[in-house]
């Protein structure tokens, strides 16, 4: 694709030819060009636009049907949206989390290395005088940035559409207590941050698959399959012993932010599981990427 941009850019071989460029500078240049590539890629922009469309569609449907007999039906948090636009953020994240967000994460992280390999640009990228470990770190940071952008695309449009259609009011928690708007916004921000951090494990998995193959579609599909299989395993009561360690098990614990007293132990254990997946699959991706023979 447009890897030439990187090669000719400030981080390319011509600029860095004297090895004198200090490592942090070279790293920053590489990261900047990678971010520009990932966030500027048309496919990724379409994905972000699609995600941003979800709260718009939900909000419009709820606005149209608010006075009909169909109002108040549907999955969790949907019924609260018409009363408080802030809940559109929560409802949209709740609906995107099982499949749409993992799909976007899979596309972005599965493409990270395998996309370069399949386009034949990986070997040129490796000419940049940056160690492979750091190159992988740049790829990981770019994929994480895309994951954050994906969650923010849902959350920000959800907030704007919700506020425009339904207004922002005091938040009624799951426990029946009411908190003022300021605290409500903070709690919803906590949900957005938790959902974003919950996807880091999947990014690491996708990055590992991406180092395994030269076929980006394979890495993307495998990443999505991991999240789907994890959800399926999570629904089997016979496997309850392994549930706490599953990638997706704690995803919906974001509801903790809507309880009268947030149990930080629950939030912390959810994030700790993601950290463990990031550590294991990050190390696997590093071992694979720094030892692999790159032929394309």
């Amino acid at each position, binding site marked *: 694709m447009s890897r030439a941009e990187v090669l000719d850019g400030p981080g390319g071989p011509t600029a860095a030819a004297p090895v004198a460029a200090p490592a942090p500078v070279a790293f920053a240049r590489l990261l900047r060009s990678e971010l520009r590539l990932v966030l500027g890629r048309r496919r990724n922009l379409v994905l972000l636009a699609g995600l941003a469309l979800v709260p718009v569609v939900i909000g419009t449907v709820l606005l149209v049907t608010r006075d009909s007999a169909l109002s108040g039906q549907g999955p969790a948090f949907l019924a609260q949206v018409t009363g408080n636009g802030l809940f559109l953020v929560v409802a949209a994240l709740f609906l995107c989390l099982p499949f749409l967000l993992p799909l976007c994460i899979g596309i972005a992280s599965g493409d990270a290395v395998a996309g370069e390999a399949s386009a034949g640009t990986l070997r040129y990228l490796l000419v940049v005088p940056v160690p492979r470990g750091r190159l992988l770190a740049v790829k990981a940071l770019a994929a994480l940035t895309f994951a954050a952008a994906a969650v923010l695309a849902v959350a920000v449009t959800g907030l704007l559409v919700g506020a425009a259609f339904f207004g922002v009011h005091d938040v009624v928690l799951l426990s*029946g207590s009411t908190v003022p708007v300021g605290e409500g916004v903070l709690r919803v921000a906590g949900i957005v941050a938790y959902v974003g951090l919950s996807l880091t494990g999947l990014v690491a998995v996708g990055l590992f698959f991406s180092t395994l193959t030269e076929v980006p579609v394979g890495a993307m599909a495998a990443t999505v399959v991991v999240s789907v299989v994890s959800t399926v395993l999570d629904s089997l009561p016979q496997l309850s012993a392994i549930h706490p360690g599953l990638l997706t098990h704690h995803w919906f614990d974001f509801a903790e932010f809507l309880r009268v007293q947030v149990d930080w132990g629950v939030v912390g254990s959810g994030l700790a599981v993601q950290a463990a997946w990031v550590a*294991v699959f990050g190390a696997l991706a590093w071992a694979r990427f*720094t030892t692999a023979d790159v032929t394309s």
Partner: protein
Amino acid sequence: MADTERPRRTLSPRARWAVPGVVAVAVAAAVGVPALASPGDADLPQVSAQDLLSRVAAAEPTPVQGTVVYTARLGLPELPAEMTGADPLNLLGGSSTLRLWSDGAERSRVSLLGATSEYSVVHDGAQAWTYSSTDDAVTHYTLDPADVARYQALADRAAAAPGADLPTPEAAAAQVLALAEQDADVTVDSPTTVAGRDAYQLVVSPTDDGTLVSRVVVAVDAATAQPLRVQAWSTSDGAAPSLEVGFTDVAFTAPDDSVLAFSAPAGATTEEVVVPLPETPELPDGAGPAAAPALPDGVAVAGSGWSTVVTLSDVDVAGLVGGDAASLATVPGAERVLGSEEAQDLVQQFVPSDGEGNPGRPSLDTTALYDQLTTAVPEGRLLSSTLVSVLITDDGRVLVGSVPADALRAAA
């Protein structure tokens, strides 16, 4: 290659592949070590059952907050799949997580947690609220003004045990300890650790062979003498307790005032229920078997102790199951039995009614639930669990007992 261009330490490929292995082992160790360390036996001085019981009886009511896990392995058939979320019916089987806050006196909050829902019971002196986030519905239980005065007088006279609709370790332990002195051996087992606290284990083993209950184990906190966990073991399942309620996380500190306060959220449907206070305000002084009130008509008791079988006659089971509140009147002694606030709450949950107090359409198809839970036998329908059996005969009798199903069928 890029990383070989500089003179820097390089790992062999094999060493690089060892890194993920080391990370995986480190993660496994971080998960496994605390899990292995916790069940270690607590190092506590020995006490007799008598000492332990008196410590429990002497313990001051303490503010408490924590997480409670309730697990039922009653051997009941699987409930219909549409039952998800925080619904008290989920307590019939499987595992549920509850949060508990209590100031040790008149105010408490118990929340049954669902993945994205919550069922809360808030109790504040003479009034109580339940809030279901799934239905966005509040039920407000109050006493009428005359009863409030009586309630205050009663509360002043005796620090009544704080009741709760959802089982907490405290409530369950209080019930067991009252029964313990009769028909059972009470011993102290080796100390254990519950929710990270050292605890004594009080074991109540029924001496009666006819009952389904093999033993009831109460873990009592060594420092505060508060019950931390209650397990009921069945004779039919020696591997795991049939019923278990215990803290997984507990702190004996006063909860935040905002947690104990409740006001109905705007937009929620609110139902007001005035609960009649029982007509026996005078507490019997010499509380004992002799002071037991006479049984209402239509109730018969056979056997004694743990294998007691209670028989209710002329009950309109079909009407009750269909959600017809009027058929409640056919339950013998309903007035008296439902005199307690807790029982009234329970009936209200199973027999929904609209704002005017008229019976409404049940939210769940209770007839289907009834068919699912019971099996057909020649005498009628039988509900058989690892701890309790219920036989509903075709001629309108209901037999309940903690005895094997065959014993009930023989009694019918």
